[in-house]
């Protein structure tokens, strides 16, 4: 379709719609519930994208990304409260702490089969939870940390309007997605795909699989740490149970990717758009029934694994291919009839 000299194909149309969709919340009531939910959706999409870097690209299945999330939140918040260091700098520091933790964890694990990485990351998040609860001098203990509300300023990472937080969260999602996109295309994209499909053959073809997996997982941990800072600043409060939560964070970000499509650029956003509102509905309508929310989450997870383990994007692509084939077959038949 030609429109004033600009060729408008389906792809650019989708991107245009997407850009508009991201702009709509700017017009929402800054104190409203809706903006908060939309912000949460995008924040979880960013977190899932961080997981997607290691889980989807390097095929290292982390079950403990809450660990890196929590390290980011604790690092920036403690630096801010105790040293008065701007959370923006704290965000980078938190990313570094998370990346170093990933490095130390990965060195013994990457030579082993994938199960061990999943086991160890899960255990790592649990252990950080114990440390955060027990060493109260360092972490304020089990009650968690409330970030004191000071003068709203950019340097303090505190804003008057929730709309500003929304903008920050969208920027975070954009940055993590850009990193994902950079890694999944170009020469690195080839290498990561090769590692994913056949590690031995990749190694023999001259790819340093160990280093690439290590680097990729550290990038993933770094970005997850950044998400932790933004989450802390956005919610003003967190505690060890919630920030290092396995079902609330670690499994959730993986599930978002699985639903949307692991290793796909738009998988996390699609997954978050479905899962986060669903969780929200479950919590709001049935909050008096303990356990129903996670129960529903687990049913969705199991169903997704059994029926569509490659996610909605793949399902959609398959449907489209089938439709095209059918179309081709029909036109072929028509031609044959003539």
């Amino acid at each position, binding site marked *: 379709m030609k429109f004033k000299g600009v060729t408008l194909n389906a792809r650019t149309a989708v991107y245009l719609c997407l850009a508009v969709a991201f702009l709509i919340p700017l017009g929402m009531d800054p104190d409203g519930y809706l903006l908060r939910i939309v912000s949460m959706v995008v924040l979880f999409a960013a977190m899932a994208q961080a997981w997607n870097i290691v*889980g989807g690209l390097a*095929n290292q*299945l982390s*079950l403990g990304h809450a660990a890196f999330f929590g390290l980011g939140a604790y690092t920036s918040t403690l630096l801010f409260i105790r040293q008065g260091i701007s959370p923006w700098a704290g965000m980078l520091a938190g990313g570094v702490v998370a990346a170093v933790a990933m490095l130390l*964890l990965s*060195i*013994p*694990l990457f*030579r*082993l089969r*994938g*199960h*061990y990485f*999943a*086991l*160890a990351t*899960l*255990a*790592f998040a*649990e*252990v950080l939870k*114990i*440390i955060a*609860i*027990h060493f109260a001098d360092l972490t304020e203990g089990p009650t968690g940390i409330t970030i004191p509300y000071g003068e709203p300023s950019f340097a303090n990472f505190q804003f008057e309007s929730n709309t500003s937080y929304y903008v920050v969260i969208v920027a975070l999602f954009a940055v993590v997605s850009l990193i994902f996109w950079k890694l999944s295309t170009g020469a690195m994209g080839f290498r990561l795909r090769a590692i994913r499909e056949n590690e031995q053959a990749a190694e023999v073809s001259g790819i340093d699989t160990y280093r690439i997996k290590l680097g990729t997982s550290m990038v993933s941990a770094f970005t997850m740490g950044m998400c932790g800072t933004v989450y802390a600043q956005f919610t003003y409060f967190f505690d060890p149970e919630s920030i290092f939560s*396995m*079902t609330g964070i670690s*499994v959730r970000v*993986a*599930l978002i990717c*699985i639903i949307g499509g*692991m290793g796909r650029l738009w998988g996390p956003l699609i997954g978050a758009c479905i899962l986060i509102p669903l969780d929200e509905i479950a919590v709001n309508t049935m909050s008096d*029934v*303990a*356990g*129903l929310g*996670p*129960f529903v*989450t*687990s*049913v969705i*997870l*199991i169903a997704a*694994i*059994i029926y569509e*383990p490659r996610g909605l994007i793949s399902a959609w692509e398959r449907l489209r291919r089938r439709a095209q084939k059918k179309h081709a077959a029909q036109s072929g038949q028509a031609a044959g009839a003539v």
Partner: protein
Amino acid sequence: MLAFIQSLLDGILLGGIYGVISIGLSLVFGVLGIVNFAQAQFMMLGMYAAWFAWDSLGLDPILGVPLTGAVIFIIGYAIEKLLLQPVLKAPPVAQIFLTVGLMILLENAVLLIFGSSFKSVVVSYQQSGLKIFGLFISVPYLFAFSAAVIVCIALWLFLSKTWFGRAIRATAQDENAAVLCGVNVKQVYALTFAVGVALTAIGGAVILPYMTVSPTVGGQFAILMFTVVVLGGLGNVAGALVGGLVVGVIQSLSAMVLPVQLQNLILFMVFIGILAFKPEGLLKEA
């Protein structure tokens, strides 16, 4: 010195239980090739089954072992057939996340049914103990340990003397060869999983006299079980038993110097240390 021996003894009594609850995890991995992240939740199910039998029938948890084992065996068999079978040939991501899903499912299903309150049983020997050479042996710990030993012997007899046990071991060693020998591998998978989770559940049932149960009790044991099976070598059944004893002793000795809450931290360090230096487990020589 006496305190040290006492600690060692406590550790062994604990470790026998850890061995039994972890054997199932290793057995399932050895035969099906998947790490069952929901294994600890079957221990929790076993505890609830035993508690329910005690609460409604007045059945002692240790005497109720056959009943608990049978109930969880059936649940495990059904879960394997319905949920695990479809992903056995799927990539690791599907297997890992399926059992993770199962873990959350079981925990919250129990929470929905029984609520979050702690449940415990009352039995006559709960507080009693024996004094031998200045050492104190708690009777419920001793009973649980003895039950664990009996269950291990029964498992060993099952695996070595029955046709089905041999079929399980054959499948673990070489699936294709087992098929050629006329073994129905799908059936072996389902039964192995059922036996594996029933063992773990029994380990849960026998500790009920000295342990309260809540839906989240499994989570407390998850890291412990990982450490046990990694120590023994993932997939190594005898190794899991040895690993259990080692972990029991480590835990009991570390309790002399460290607060109880930090025991999982110690276990995690053992876990990572083993993976870094002896990933095939303690029993196999490098």
